[in-house]
Every structure is written in C-alpha cells, then in structure tokens.
C-alpha cells in the first residue's frame, strides 16, 4: 500500500496538452476517482502512473519513490482495463497468473523477500484470488466462454493476484450492463475495504464517482478542477464545470449581473434575485475542498457578470391553481422562502419516483425589486404566462447584454407525491438561499457571496 503523488505533471503530445500541470496527492489506502468527460486527460494521468506513458514534465511518486523512470513492471501497480485486456488464448487460470510469471514480488513469510514466485506459490495465489472472487469453477475456461461480468472479475483477479501497492482502474465497469454495473460497483467498494489498497479509479460516470469514491478529482481539458469528498464537491462546486458535471439533471445555471443596490442581488432579465446573507457558505473554507483557483475569485461588485446556479432538487414550485387568487406573500409563507423566479412550465417528465419539470423562465419573482429603475419595493411585476418568454428575456431589459438572447430553462425536481403542474402553467420558484451558487461568468470560478457581503458590511 502506498500513496501516489503527482507533482506538477504535464503530458504533451506535440502541440496538444493532454495533462496540464496536474498536482494531486492520493493518500495511502484511499479510493480516488478521477472524473471527467472523455478526452479530459484522466486516462492519460492514470497511464502515466502505470508507466505506460512518460510524463513530459513533473514528478510522479508512488510512496516515497519517484517512479518517472521506473519500468511499469517495477512500479508495483496493477491495472484493470476498460476492455479487461484478458489474453484470449489463455485460460482464466493462466490469465490470472500472468502477472506472477515475470514480475518479482514479495513472498509470504521469509521477512518479505522479493523474488519471482515458484510454480506452487503461483498456484496458491491464483487459487486464493479465485476463491475471493468466486472464480474457482471457471479457472479452466477461456475468456471467450465467459460472460461480461465474469471477464470483469477475471480482470480484477489478475490485478489483485500481484498484491500491488496501488490498483489502477480505467473505466472498468463501462462494458457491463446497467444492473451488473451497480452490483460490481458495490463489489469493488467491498474489495477496497477488505484489502485496504490504494485505488485510483478513472471514470466519466459521475454516479460511479459519487457512490464509490473516498475523494473525487474532477478533471477538465487536462486540468484538475477540484478535489474533495463526494459531498463537498457536490455541495460546493469550485467552478461552473464541476457544478454542471455533477448531478442529474445538471445544475441549473442562469446568467445575470451583480447588483448591490438595496442589498446584494443578481439581475436576471428585468428582475432581481436577492441574495440574503446566510451562514451556509462558511463551509467553503473548511478545508474539505481544495478548489485550485479559489484564490482568483474576483470582487463582487455592481455590474459584474455572474452565473447563478441552483440544483433541481433544491427548488420548490408554486403555481397553477394554487397561485391563482393568492398573493406572492401567501406563496412565500407557504414555501418559507422568498420567491426566486417566475416562469412557464414547458414540459413535465414523469419518471415514477419523481418528476422533472422544465420551466422556461422569463419573468422575475412577483414583488422583486427593480433596482435599475428605482420602482418601489414590493410592487408586483405581473408578467403573465401569455407573454412570449423569449421576448421578455431578450428585450425586456433596457440595460441589455446581461442575459443571452436564448431561452433559459430551469429544471425542477418534484417528489412522487407532489402534484405536477400542467405544461403552460405559470409557476413561481422558491429556494433556500443557502443552496444558491454564484459563479464568475468570465472565469467560471465560484464566488463566495455571503462572506463577501460580510466583508463589505464590516468595511
């Protein structure tokens, strides 16, 4: 068992930078998931750790040893490949034994002598691993006679048999069907707990990452975006990429500009969403997240273009029949929060255990302050559902430019027992301000608005 450290590692193929100055410390015994879209460089990073690729720059350590110039077979790592990489002409037994043939390894007893294993020792180890993974009855078969799930286990067995310091797994579940994937996910986590070996696990599947990882490293365009435990990266995404990549459906994001007139808020279209100070965001600095670029967060000042983010499950909705005849105050009372945005239901996807409601927004919350024109607080901006939303968003604001001309939609998740609105209904959305995320439009970096506000207040 060992830690794995990438120190400012870069991989270039000619002009193309596959991995860009990546620094990452994987702790001993940790299950670290490298997560990102295809082509982001996560597999290249893994292959550099394995020694299948050279690092162009930077240092790679396994434990305390710098391994940049160490042959793959001497790095004491095992790899599980996406397509399993089983030798098709060898039996399962010989496949599992293959890492034991040429590699030297620690021998049981004898104070951990390092040498090649004898035939009986190999057989013993293969049998042990086969028992661990329930492969005893398949040892004489060829890979072609196995199901996909069985092949996957053989690949795992081959990785385990060498008792490496680190397991490297390159999308090992991507060729399994959905049901088997969930099952195998659990098995790998079990295995990790039993063996306690460091695992570096590459995937593009955020569900795998969130369910399996001790920590997740999010990678985009060769750069490390954020490292943290699943909950912290989900709850406090360091930037827009992380915010949108994690979660299904992706986090809703709406562009707007900061306004500080009459308290901190974001102007979206013609309306303003207020951002009351909350204690919630203090977790940003609790050390659990390592947002690389958090230092670059700019000042929150009047007119700054920003992106407001909110996850679908953090939104509540009032609308249709419920709202008719009622005031926004009544709605506010019902939800417990201030209204955020108003919009029109575009369509509803019923998924059984939940519903996803897509709302085309184009109107601010009833009673939103219009800081730009100075119209009184509390005056109702009655935008009806019959008004074309595009027109409202595109042309409704004389200041212009702070909202793209395209139609903005927001997805809202409703529980199975909540009544879904009809398409075309006007609804008002509410959210706990603690669940609102603010990002700088230009850099995509997270903006800690509450702390800023506190700082501004103390100034």
């Amino acid at each position, binding site marked *: 068992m060992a830690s794995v450290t990438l120190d400012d590692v870069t991989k270039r193929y000619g002009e193309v930078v596959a991995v860009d100055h990546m620094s990452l410390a994987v702790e001993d015994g940790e299950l670290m998931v490298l997560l990102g879209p295809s082509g982001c460089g996560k597999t290249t990073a893994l292959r550099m750790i394995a020694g299948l690729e050279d690092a162009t720059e930077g240092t790679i350590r396994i434990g305390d040893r710098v391994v940049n110039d160490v042959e793959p077979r*001497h790095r004491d790592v*095992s790899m599980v490949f996406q397509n399993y990489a089983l030798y098709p002409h060898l039996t399962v037994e010989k496949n599992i034994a293959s890492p034991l043939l*040429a590699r030297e390894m620690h021998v049981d007893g004898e104070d951990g002598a390092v040498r090649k294993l004898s035939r009986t020792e190999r057989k013993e180890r293969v049998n042990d691993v086969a028992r661990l993974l329930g492969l005893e009855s398949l040892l004489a078969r060829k890979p072609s006679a196995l199901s996909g799930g069985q092949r996957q286990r053989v690949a795992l067995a081959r990785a385990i048999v060498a008792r490496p310091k680190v397991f490297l797994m390159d999308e090992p579940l991507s060729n399994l069907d959905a049901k088997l994937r969930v099952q195998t996910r659990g098995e790998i986590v079990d295995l990790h707990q039993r063996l306690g070996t460091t695992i570096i696990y590459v995937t593009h599947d955020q569900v795998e990452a969130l369910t399996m990882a001790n920590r997740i490293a999010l990678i985009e365009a060769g750069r490390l975006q954020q490292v943290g435990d699943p909950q912290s990266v989900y709850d406090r995404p360091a930037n827009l990429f992380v915010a949108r990549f994690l979660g299904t459906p992706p986090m809703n994001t709406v562009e707007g500009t900061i306004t500080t007139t009459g308290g901190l808020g974001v102007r979206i279209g013609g309306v303003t969403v207020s951002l009351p100070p909350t204690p919630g965001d203090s977790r940003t600095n609790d050390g659990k997240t390592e947002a690389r670029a958090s230092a670059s967060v700019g000042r929150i000042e009047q007119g700054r273009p920003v992106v407001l983010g909110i996850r679908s499950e953090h939104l509540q909705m009032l609308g249709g029949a419920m709202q008719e005849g009622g005031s926004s105050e009544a709605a506010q009372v019902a939800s417990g929060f201030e209204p955020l945005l108003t919009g029109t239901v575009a369509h509803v996807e019923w998924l059984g255990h939940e519903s996803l409601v897509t709302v085309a927004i184009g109107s601010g919350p009833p009673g939103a302050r219009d800081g730009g024109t100075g119209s009184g607080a509390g005056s109702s901006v009655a935008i009806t559902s019959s008004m074309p939303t595009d027109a409202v968003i595109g042309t409704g604001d004389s200041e212009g430019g702070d909202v793209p001309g395209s139609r903005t939609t927001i997805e809202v998740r409703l529980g199975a027992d909540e009544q879904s609105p009809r398409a075309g209904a006007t609804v008002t959305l509410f959210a706990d301000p603690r669940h609102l995320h603010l990002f700088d439009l230009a850099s995509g970096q997270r903006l800690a608005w509450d702390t800023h506000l506190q700082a501004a207040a103390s100034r």
Partner: protein
Amino acid sequence: MSAVPASRTQVHHVARRARTAGWYLLLTALAVIILFPIYMMVVRALSTPVTYFGRGSPLYPVDVEWGVFRAAWDEGGIGRSMGVSTVATLLMTGGQVVTAILAAYAFAFLRFPLRRLVFVLFIGTLMLPIEVTLIPNVQTMRDLHWLNSFPGLVGPFLASALGTFLIHQGFRAIPTELLDAASLDGYGHMRFLTRVAVPLSKPVIASFTVIAFLGAWNQFIWPEAVSTETHWQTVQIGVAALSATTPDHSNIAFAGAIVASLPLVVLLVAFQRQLVRGLTAGAVKG
C-alpha cells in the same frame, strides 16, 4: 374452390424443386468440366499406352497397370526429386514464416530509425519477382558455388515481403490494451512475441504458412535455372522433364504428375480454410 390454393402451393413446390435440380445440374456440369482434365490424367497414367492407343484413346482406363507409379518413382526419378522438393519446400516455408514473423514484430511493436524507409524497401521487393532478378541471381549462385545445392534452391526465398505484410497486419490487430497489460505483467519482447503476439495471430500465420508452402512447392523457373544436374531437380522440373519422353512412356509422366500433386491435395483438403484465406489475401502463384 379450396383445391385452388392447394394446387397453387403444389405448383410453387414443383417450381422450387425444378429450380434446385437446375442448380445441381449446372454445378455438376461445371464440376465435370473442371475435373475432366484431372480425370484424364489419371486415366492416362493407369493405362498402358500401347493398348490404350490401340483402343482408340477411350475415356476410361485400359489395361490398368499400377506399377506405373513405382516406375515413375524409381526410373522416372520422381522419388529423388520429391525428396529435393520436400526439403527445399520445408526450408523455404519455415524460413519465410520465421523471418516474416520477426520482421513483422519489429514493424508492429518497435520504434527504430529509418522505419518507414525499411518498410518501403520491404514492400518494394514485391516489384522484383524472381523472373526479373533471375539472371543476376543465377550469377550470384554461380559465384557462391551454390548451383545444385539447397542453399542455392532456397536462398532467395527465405524472406517474404507479402508474409511480413500480412503478419504485420495480424499483429496490429492485437488490442493495445493487451500490450499495456503485458507491459504491466513484465513481459519482455521474447515472451510477448511467443506468448501473446504469435498465438493471437495464429490464423494469419497459418494462412501465410499454407500459401508459402504452395508457392515453394510449385516453383519452376528458379529451380530450373539453378539445378543443372538431374540429381538436384525438384519434382516440378522432374515432371516437366518426364513429359518430354516418348508417347509409349507417357503414362509414367502422368503418374509422376499425380505423385507431385499429392502433397497439395493433402494441403487443399486439410487446410482449405487457411488456403482460401491466404490466397484471397495474397494470391501467390499456384
């Protein structure tokens, strides 16, 4: 009324059977055309020439004499030339397969300077068949005193660009992941070649082996040029030489031709799949 559909089905049925019969008839006719020359060779080998001509050359054997094969083998020199052909063919086939595997391995898995140039030079030899290089190659053999020897017979055919190319393609089809896995497993080149690359490319290597054998066994112009002594004639040369004998002994020539073809008949029956695959990929001279 209900009889109408029934009879209609019957008509269809009859038509289909007639069509099937028609195909069999055509196939049989074609088979007869193809086999007729071979059949006549057998007839003429088995028939005693004088009696056969006396009967007016019928389409069936006359006065069958099985001793003709023995005569071809011994007096006709086919036995001796079969020996020469067997050794030469095995040397050429084995040599080509081994050198092609090695060269293909270098092209498929190794990086080395001038790789492209070397590859082009390999492929370029496809443009230099033995017919083109015959005269200087015979001179080389004369200079080396390799005329009438196995080195002389097989020398130019110990490497094959076609084989290198085909096996190279086979090696390239090995998934990259297996290379990675072998690398992590600590396999060296020797182990990777013998344990992974060759076993996984068995089909293509087998195909090439079969067509290399075919080409080597059937060689004519080169052994004709370098085997100036009867003792070093290959069986093809021997058969051709026998055919020049008098009509009264022509049965011996045909018997010799049959014997010379037997290894290829075995090849055709036992390795038809490999043969077909090899010929469709490479099309060597048959």
